[in-house]
């Protein structure tokens, strides 16, 4: 094994000119899907001294007093009433910017950043305060209004994948962050174990563990002998990328993903895996469906 400086394939984030248009279409699409599933949820209803904004699916651990029993009786699914005060909940987006996120074409960091911006836009639309955490408890960006999306894009454009500080390192710092109804972890989740993130679970807090892997990490091509170089440490290993070896590799990866799925399920969190060449809209819409 040898160590050396690693030249990452995609260390930086660059938003394509079409990104804003795609983001707009995503917001419109998610809104229409929500209307179809919830009906006229955005109707302004007076009551309770708080502005009624609509409904959202009930999350495990929530106060049953917010449950709309009528809707439960009518639809058979639990929904809670969302007031303006509650809509101003906090979303926490934790983004892994370690060197391993610079792997893949497009890079994992690129997709994670695009999803982070999409979450910012979705959160702002839901009148939530969205904070982006990359290096610790201090947020890199905070989004409360629509123009925050531009600031997020600029901040993420300046970001560069590097170092070995992934979400496993970030998690203890995030433990000091209070509140937050939805916590999104965007990264390859390769530097940590499920418990490191899932211990951040709290009543009324939804954890969504979004794993992004490069296509060559998910299903490597049969290239023969390959020198695999660790993106963070520079450690190199010579391994055969043959059909037999690739099968064993994919089994090992599947076992790892299954372990994370099981752990997340036990903690009533979401763990899902995408490749970095997935359109961010697909990933965001999937999260929206999960969030309701």
């Amino acid at each position, binding site marked *: 094994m040898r160590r050396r400086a*690693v*030249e*990452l*394939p995609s260390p930086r984030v660059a938003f394509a000119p079409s990104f804003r248009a795609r983001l707009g279409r995503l917001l419109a699409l998610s809104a229409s899907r929500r209307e179809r599933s919830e009906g006229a949820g955005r109707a302004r209803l007076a009551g309770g001294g708080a502005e009624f904004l609509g409904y959202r699916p009930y999350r495990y651990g929530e106060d049953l007093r917010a449950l709309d029993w009528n809707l439960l009786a009518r639809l058979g699914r639990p929904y809670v009433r969302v007031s303006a005060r509650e809509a101003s909940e906090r979303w926490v987006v934790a983004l892994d910017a370690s060197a*391993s*996120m*610079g*792997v893949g074409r497009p890079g*994992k960091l690129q997709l994670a950043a695009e999803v982070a911006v999409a979450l910012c836009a979705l959160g702002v639309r839901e009148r939530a305060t969205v904070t982006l955490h990359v290096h610790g408890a201090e947020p890199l960006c905070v989004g409360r209004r629509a123009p925050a999306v531009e600031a997020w894009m600029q901040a993420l454009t300046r970001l560069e994948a590097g170092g070995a500080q992934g979400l496993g390192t970030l998690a203890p710092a995030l433990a000091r962050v209070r509140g937050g109804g939805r916590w999104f972890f965007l990264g*390859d989740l*390769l530097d940590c174990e499920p418990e490191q993130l899932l211990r951040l679970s709290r009543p009324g807090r939804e954890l969504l563990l979004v794993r992004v*892997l*490069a296509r*060559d*990490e998910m299903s*490597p091509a049969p*290239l*023969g*002998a*390959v*020198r*695999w*170089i*660790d*993106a*963070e*440490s520079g*450690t*190199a*290993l*010579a*391994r*055969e990328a043959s059909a037999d*070896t690739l099968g*064993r*590799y994919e089994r*090992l*990866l599947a076992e*790892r993903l299954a372990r994370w799925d099981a752990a997340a399920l036990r903690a009533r969190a979401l763990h899902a895996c995408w490749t970095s060449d997935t359109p961010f809209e697909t990933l965001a819409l999937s999260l929206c469906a999960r969030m309701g």
Partner: protein
Amino acid sequence: MAWLDLARPAAAWALLLGPALLLLVRVLARPPEAVTGTLALWRALPEARAGRAGHARFPLWALLAALALTLGALAWLGPRPRGARAPRAWSVVVDRSPSLGLAYAPAAPETRLARALAAAEAWLAGTLEPDETVRWVSPGRAPLVLARGARPPEEWLACDGAEPDWDVFDAPGTLWVTDREPPGARRAAGLFASGGPAVPGAIALEGAASVWWEEGRLALRARPVPPAVRVLEPAGEPLPEVLARLLGAWCDARGFALVRAPAPDELLELALAPGPAAAESLRFGRDGWRATGRAAALAPLAAGSAGEDWLQAVAADGTPRVLVRARTGRVDVALHELGTPEGDPAAFALSWTRLLEGSCRLPADVVPLAERAAAGEERHLAPALPARHPDARAALGPALDAGLALAAGLVAALAFLLRARA
């Protein structure tokens, strides 16, 4: 290598082509690199064959291609067994005329011959191969064949001879060693001429004095001792009286000392052959005189020896008998009895005087004026290289080259086929 010669050693660089190809293959065949975040998973898998066996393993086609290149390079180099090339014919023709014995420069201890020889030998040392020999030739000397670096003995190189007939020796591989460039066109021989300024000194004898030449003027200088003519007579057998009287008169007239013991400045030895004289009376003569007498036998002249049979007679049985033999510095006489010559007495005296004058050697310090003249500039001109005459083994060389080239082609074709199938 001691057992191998190369016909084209300049092509040795081509031997690097094979290793260079392998190096190139190794560089190009390095496994591709891929940056990943899942190294922990790969670490759990078995190591690749290339990594386990090391990087020294080359594909067979590459090894064959390198072998083909090496064979081709060998064919180009042209290996030959040592000795397959016949040694070249080298000759050194030495001018031993007296001018070569003069000092190269007024204060220099070395002679012109030594200087010219040193230059020629230096060139030979840098040109000849270890197993080659040199044939040394000089007029009046038996040729010598010596190994590279060897020099004829000093007596062989004594400067008491004559200038060679240069045209006879104008051939490739021949070095002329002299002090000045010979007249005439030199075509193939090399020239190693010492050159040198004029050397003043004695140029002739005038009785007991020397004729001294210096700065274009001549002067007589008395010699410390008069030059001597030595008579060698067997015990109890004197020279015939006629000859003894003639010899004494000639020495008196020339100012030479007539001695019978060794003298420091001997010009001539006149030796009477030991007897006994034959009983048969012989009749002989030359230059207008005739006489009768009895003579002992002179040994036949050895092959290669200098000497002239000056007087002969025919015995009654018809066999020729040599009576007087002469060479520079010595006259051998077989006549033990000599009657009064018939005919003009002056003819007899003049004939013998010519013999004695012509046989005298010059003292070492007396060198003719032409020899003492300036020899010009020093010149070193290499000869044309002699051709080799290959022997039977050398004739195999082109066949060996062709065989190597054919093998290289076949191996290259095999390497190409393997590469195409890979």
